[in-house]
């Protein structure tokens, strides 16, 4: 029913706006959304899923690296750099910011600081994962009901 799709679409718009307002997602996510079309209807889900897999791997590597007796900060920094890159590519702003702070601790070779940063990055990651799963589920529901995903107007 049209009313049903309309309601879902409004929910999506509001939810998405809240994620932008809270700084969880940024404009880059809109870029990804705009790359999705009928010929590539699963593009966003695909990229986000890859991001999830990649992030889990990197977070595990980071925990392992920081658990060593002699921490290899170059290795830690390399992992954080990768995570920063992929989070930036999908628009996961808070994860990206947490990675930037993490890199400072790496530069200072501060193990305690790095562990705190890892905690923060992990927290931000699970937050964005949770939110994106809800968002993408809403999108899938709209598409399944025959509707289209509303485009977000430019965030000022």
């Amino acid at each position, binding site marked *: 029913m049209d009313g049903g799709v309309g309601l879902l679409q409004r929910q999506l718009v509001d939810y998405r706006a809240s994620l932008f307002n809270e700084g969880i997602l940024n404009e880059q996510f809109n870029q990804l959304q705009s*790359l999705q079309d009928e010929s590539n209807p699963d*593009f966003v889900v695909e990229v986000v899923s890859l991001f999830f897999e*990649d992030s889990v791997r990197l977070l595990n590597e980071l925990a392992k690296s920081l658990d060593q007796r002699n921490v290899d900060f170059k290795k830690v*920094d390399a992992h954080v750099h990768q995570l920063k890159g992929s989070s930036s*590519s999908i628009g996961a702003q808070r994860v990206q910011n947490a990675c930037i702070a993490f890199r400072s601790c790496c530069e200072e070779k501060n193990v305690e600081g790095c562990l705190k940063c890892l905690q923060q990055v992990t927290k931000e990651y699970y937050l964005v994962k949770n939110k994106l799963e809800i968002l993408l589920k809403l999108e899938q529901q709209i598409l399944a009901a025959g509707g289209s995903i509303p485009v977000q107007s430019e965030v000022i």
Partner: protein
Amino acid sequence: MARNGVVSRRRRTEGFDSSDLSKSDHAQQAHVLAVDDSLVDRIVIERLLKISCCKVTAVDSGSRALQFLGLDDEKSSVVDSLKVDLIITDYCMPGMSGYELMKKIKESSAFKEIPVVIMSSENVLSRIDRCLEEGAEDFIVKPVKLSDVKRIKNYMIREDRSSGEDRGTNSRKRPRDGCDSLSSSQSLNSPPPSLESKLFNRFYPTVLRPSPSKPPSPLFSLSPLPSSSPLPRSPSPTPSSSPCAPLDSPTRRVKLINSAHVMPS
């Protein structure tokens, strides 16, 4: 990521991720070789390029890129006749960096004319300078957006795919079907851009560019910079052997701008 040499999770033909190679109706599309060790970034850049009507081959390392071009020691090229119209590469990669890859390409007589674009998550002026001086057409600060890809399409069109044409003397290409015709209306009879104009174009991609026959007008001031090009961070106090650590920033850009008679703010 992708340490075991896997190019793409989805397609593993010959170890390379090449799409649409067999479709003859795409014969006139530009072919881009994209190099990035991050799988997420490879998927995104591939999509950005395809949506801009390019054929894409995405590889995960500089050595894979050289292998594809046939520049590695084994001289094994997967598809000899497949021309590459542009190479876009990440700067920071394990093993060979994008900068080193570009140098190897520029040193080769067969491929030095192929335009190379560098991408980096770090907006470090000295890095940008170095890449442009080594011959990069452009430097994109990640995350890459559609507007970035539209901009670099201009470099591809200047490379005429018909044989025997030199850069700068190209005849007009026919517009790509179903694609944005904006880029095909750009002037093609332009000399290779100077380093000054490359830097100008890098920081003012949306500003109407002055005629290529003269240097950037001294009336353009350098400030304010567009928000998409933040000022670089101050250099790290301790030298680092990591290839991706912030480099100390010389004042080369200021020297170049001064030589072009543009007043800094």
